[in-house]
């Protein structure tokens, strides 16, 4: 399938998904989907709650934080005692403390940054019982929070924004589990391995070598890792691994799975606020940026690799093929990596470290924009809504009214909460990068010097701070320093945005709705889309321009001078 056809197929598939999955999710969170009600009830009884038990934003956010915290502690414990747990055919020992902390934080925050090699560190029990469970649960937390924020817009004068436990349960039961199951079946049918039988040993009589081929519960983990924009695969090579990503179809399916929920949530949003156009506007803003970045990065990767060119191979018809699977090629790999960096997924099917400088620029800046195009499951929607609130505030002032978004006045409290949601990520990323390049423990991390080494550190901090998990590689992250700093990065990046988002929902829900009139600031037309894109790009650009100038831009401008 050619690159263009891939794009066309992807657009069609996502268009259908947007319409139907989006509307389905609205029904799920409205409580109109009941076919597994018999399963819901025991959960609620256990938690002592239920759909009628509405929560204020404080309790909602508190529930999300406590829930995540509990999994963090419990998961840490399980990784530390991995050696004593079943499903461990390779007899892998305990995961070291710093690495355990980084890993469990990574999965609880939907980041899936991996400072370990899956097949050499994690037992099957850890893969399934800790990591895969988190891939479901952290995705559900993100989606629940997004729904809570949207309720802020759709409700009027309400002290509550739903019930976290109910939203999360429904998300798991009706959305994540069924889709992941079906996708898993398809993946396994295509050849993704799914076994608990341990690594295969294959003797090659011709060369007299015995190969150990790692296996594991790969296929189904792959399904939720993409559906939940997690990105942490069972293998170190992630989706470049043929046993995880065996065919062109699975490659396509992985991209589609990743984009499906973040894209569809804009429809859900539109339906919840009784105007699908509103959701379509946000989707268009996302698609514009996404499309430009795909085009830019694909173009960059289609250019010859300057190092290879310097070695005498000037003619490189396949573009920059260093670090890429021959199966996928230059542009398709770029599409894949852009899709994964702009969804907070972070999976890779090619080595970003070997990308041309502008290719790295494409994936790196995709994350720096705050993971909103379309971003992670739930987190993409709630973060772009934060950007939209800022756009509405500035744009609304320019028409001479107290700005309002969907009839909700955007005032001091909303600006404050959106502002916090906006500033936590860039400050965290920049400050932690500054620390990493200043202290010895940080400076020994990157394999390269100069701008490329700088980019490797910046990329790692950006990826974790945006809960993406995409690794540029070329950075030895499994050190006490990077494990701990990375974990802090991920926690701040997750909860520094998530909590203000829930608070914003609470604040908006408590407000009455100003009826729309001709004088109302329209939030469903081209001008608004332009303003949202403007806020995303200008805020991202202004905060990260100097850092990026010192990384990929210098590298690009050096035209083949290497560091």
């Amino acid at each position, binding site marked *: 399938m050619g690159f263009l056809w891939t794009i066309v197929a992807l657009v069609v598939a996502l268009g259908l998904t947007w319409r139907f999955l989006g509307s389905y999710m609205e029904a799920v969170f409205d409580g109109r989907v009941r076919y597994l009600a018999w399963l819901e009830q025991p959960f609620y009884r256990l938690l002592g709650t239920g759909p009628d038990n509405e929560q204020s934003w404080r309790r909602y956010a508190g529930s999300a934080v406590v829930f995540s915290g509990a999994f963090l502690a419990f998961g840490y414990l399980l990784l530390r005692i991995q050696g004593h747990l079943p499903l461990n055919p390779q007899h892998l020992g305990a995961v070291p403390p710093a690495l355990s902390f980084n890993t469990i934080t990574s999965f609880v925050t939907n980041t899936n940054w991996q400072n370990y090699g899956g097949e050499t560190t994690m037992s099957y029990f850890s893969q399934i019982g800790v990591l895969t469970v988190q891939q479901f649960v952290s995705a559900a937390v993100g989606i629940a929070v997004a729904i809570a924020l949207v309720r802020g817009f759709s409700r009027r004068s309400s002290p509550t924004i739903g019930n976290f436990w109910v939203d999360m349960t429904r998300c798991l039961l009706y959305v994540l589990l069924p889709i992941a199951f079906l996708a898993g079946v398809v993946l396994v049918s295509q050849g993704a391995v799914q076994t608990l039988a341990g690594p295969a040993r294959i003797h090659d009589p011709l060369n007299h070598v015995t190969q150990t081929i790692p296996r594991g519960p790969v296929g189904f983990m792959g399904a939720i890792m993409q559906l939940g924009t997690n990105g942490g695969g069972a293998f170190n090579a992630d989706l470049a691994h043929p046993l995880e990503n065996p065919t062109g179809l699975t490659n396509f399916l992985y991209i589609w799975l990743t984009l499906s929920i973040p894209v569809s949530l804009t429809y859900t949003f539109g339906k919840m606020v009784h105007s699908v156009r509103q959701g379509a506007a946000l989707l268009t803003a996302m698609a514009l940026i996404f499309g430009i970045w795909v085009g830019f990065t694909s173009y960059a990767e289609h250019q010859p690799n300057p190092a290879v060119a310097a070695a005498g191979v000037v003619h490189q018809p396949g573009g920059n093929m260093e670090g890429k699977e021959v199966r996928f090629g230059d542009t398709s790999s770029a599409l894949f990596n852009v899709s994964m960096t702009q969804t907070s997924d972070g999976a890779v099917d090619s080595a970003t470290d070997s990308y041309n400088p502008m290719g790295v620029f494409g994936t790196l800046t995709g994350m720096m924009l705050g993971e909103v195009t379309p971003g992670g499951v739930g987190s993409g929607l709630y973060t772009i809504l934060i950007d939209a609130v*800022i756009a509405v505030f500035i744009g609304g002032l320019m028409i001479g009214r107290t700005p309002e978004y969907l009839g909700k006045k955007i005032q001091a409290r909303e600006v404050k909460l959106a502002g916090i949601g906006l500033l936590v990520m860039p400050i965290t990323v920049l400050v932690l990068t500054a620390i990493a390049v*200043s202290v010895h423990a940080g400076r020994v991390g990157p394999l390269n010097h100069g701008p490329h080494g700088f980019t490797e550190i910046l990329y790692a901090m950006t990826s974790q701070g945006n809960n993406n998990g995409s690794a540029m590689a070329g950075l030895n992250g499994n050190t006490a320093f990077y494990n701990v700093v990375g974990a802090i990065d991920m926690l701040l990046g997750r909860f520094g945005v998530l909590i203000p988002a829930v608070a914003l929902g609470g604040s908006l829900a408590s407000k009455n709705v100003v009826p729309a009139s001709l004088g109302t600031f329209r939030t469903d037309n081209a001008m608004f889309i332009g303003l949202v894109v403007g806020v995303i790009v200008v805020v991202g650009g*202004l905060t990260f321009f100097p850092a990026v100038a010192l990384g990929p831009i210098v590298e690009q401008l050096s035209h083949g001078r290497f560091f």
Partner: protein
Amino acid sequence: MARSTARPRPRAQPAPRGVAEARSLFDREILRQALVDAFKKLDPRVQVKNPVMFVVLVGTVVTFAESITHPGKFDWSITVWLFLTVLFANFAEAMAEGRGKAQADTLRRMRSEVEARRLRPDGTEERVAAADLVRGDLVCCEAGDLVPSDGEIVEGVASVDESAITGESAPVIRESGGDRSAVTGGTKVLSDRIVVRITAERGKTFLDRMIHLVEGANRQKTPNEIALTILLSVLTIIFIPVVVVLQPFGRYAGATVSVVILVSLMVCLIPTTIGALLSAIGIAGMDRLVQKNVLAMSGRAVEAAGDVQTLLLDKTGTITLGNRMAAGFLPVGGHTEQEVAGAAQLASLADETPEGRSIVVLAKERFNLRERDLGSGHVFVPFSATTRMSGLDVDHRRIRKGAADSVKRWVAQLGGRVPDELDAIVERVARAGSTPLVVAEEATILGVIELKDVVKQGIRERFDDMRSLGIRTVMITGDNPLTAAAIAEEAGVDDYLAEATPETKLALIKSEQEGGKLVAMTGDGTNDAPALAQADVGVAMNTGTTAAKEAGNMVDLDSNPTKLLEIVEVGKQLLITRGSLTTFSIANDIAKYFAIIPALFVATYPQLGALDVMRLHSPSSAVLSAVIFNALVIVALIPLALRGVRFRPSSSAAILRRNVLIYGVGGIVAPFVFIKLIDLLLVALHAY
């Protein structure tokens, strides 16, 4: 009539011309004072209230220290320009305040100590200082006296010169009882004697409040201003680490990063333009209202005016001229239009009411009927409540005009016949919202004069403007629904409330507000007070009662209810100015990056010179040019901040498109041009 006894107005000292005294934007006196105040405002306790400018001040101190330890022309230049940036911001605020202060001084001059003639319970007078008056005291004022304090007339009627407050030189009539009983301290009684019950305590009179307001003594930040300050703080908080981390980033790259350049970059990135002008915009917005002779009790009210979605407008005085005007002569029973006009003119010659005069004017316009010299043999018959007719007896002709019923009765008494079509015509005229007057000569009914409630010229276009802004206009009238509907139709209002009472008015406001709308209204009577208090923007007429003035949150000194429309526009303009300058400020950052980032690292990475798209002379001149631009743009925008950006009512989409284009796109492009120009200038002056 009282006016006959009025003395010539004393003109001993130049009478203050009210608060609306127009001053040019850059009055020399204000400029001078503002320059002085700009330095006074350097006090850190003042600066800390504006987070953006406070950061600039701190940055200036840092570069100052740097300049002392490593003296150099560049460091000193930057320090001076950063300091100027702070000064310019102070100057902008001082300019805005200066205009208010000048007005307050004018008002204060008239609050000279006045002696009051307080009445003792037994009716005798005693002289006390106005300062000693308390609420409930009765004072007496005669022609030539200044009213010592705010109060209500309890006895008498007088013409009062209120020019000190309103700037309007024509005296107004004030009388006890009804809605014209309020008098304001500082105004002058021109005729007759009134007894006033004091309603305000010292320091809380209208004049005191006015001084307070125009001076902006304890100006509170308005809700949108607070929200915007938060956004600007957020941007400042983001940009500080963005710049600070360049130190370690640079060190990692092997570069030595100049602290002075870092501070310059930070100052250029944080939104100094809007940060510097924000309070000036707010003060100037209040000031623009004062220029229109409207006093807002709080900035919050001005902002609310921009948000208003429903305007309640009294029909009389706002939508219609208040007087009905003759609009046509409709003959009956075979008579001609000219006959009707002729008779109507004769019947109205002595009628001094505006309606009567309008009949004479119309007859002249239509048929060139001049006012005839009637000679001596005529008697005017004035209007009386019993006959409900007026007219003229001349040469044994008795001509009458009046309400249909009365004239019909009169004709019947004389044995005349009422033409069949009369009733139909009368009803048609009434249905169209006009008043029919029937004209008869002796026993013959000639026809009908149509007196129209004349809708103000241009008011329909104003309502169209309001509609394009998404504002619904509702006409409030005591008329019956039929008449109300006709006038509403003609004036182009969206809705009307007929047979309105204070209760129905209040109920309407409440129901609009429950739907989430903000409501503005005008009122003057005491029975308007509850509605004025309930409305989000309640504009009390200065001619109104004290109760009305206290209930509303604005007072219109001109007592012109149409002004509500202008108030809404000022409110909107205020917000638009803030939003546009914020956009401009942020958009400017892009060019500044392209000037400073290459300069910062070009020594380490000469390749980054490619980012210097402006091809600036040298790293030093690049940074200095950006800093100078950043400072000068504040000064350049002061007039815009004080005047407000141009605002013309149109749809929100059109307004937004225009402002995004000018201040967003323009904000991106302008600094590229000007930074380059400043750089060229620096080179030309051999500064670098």
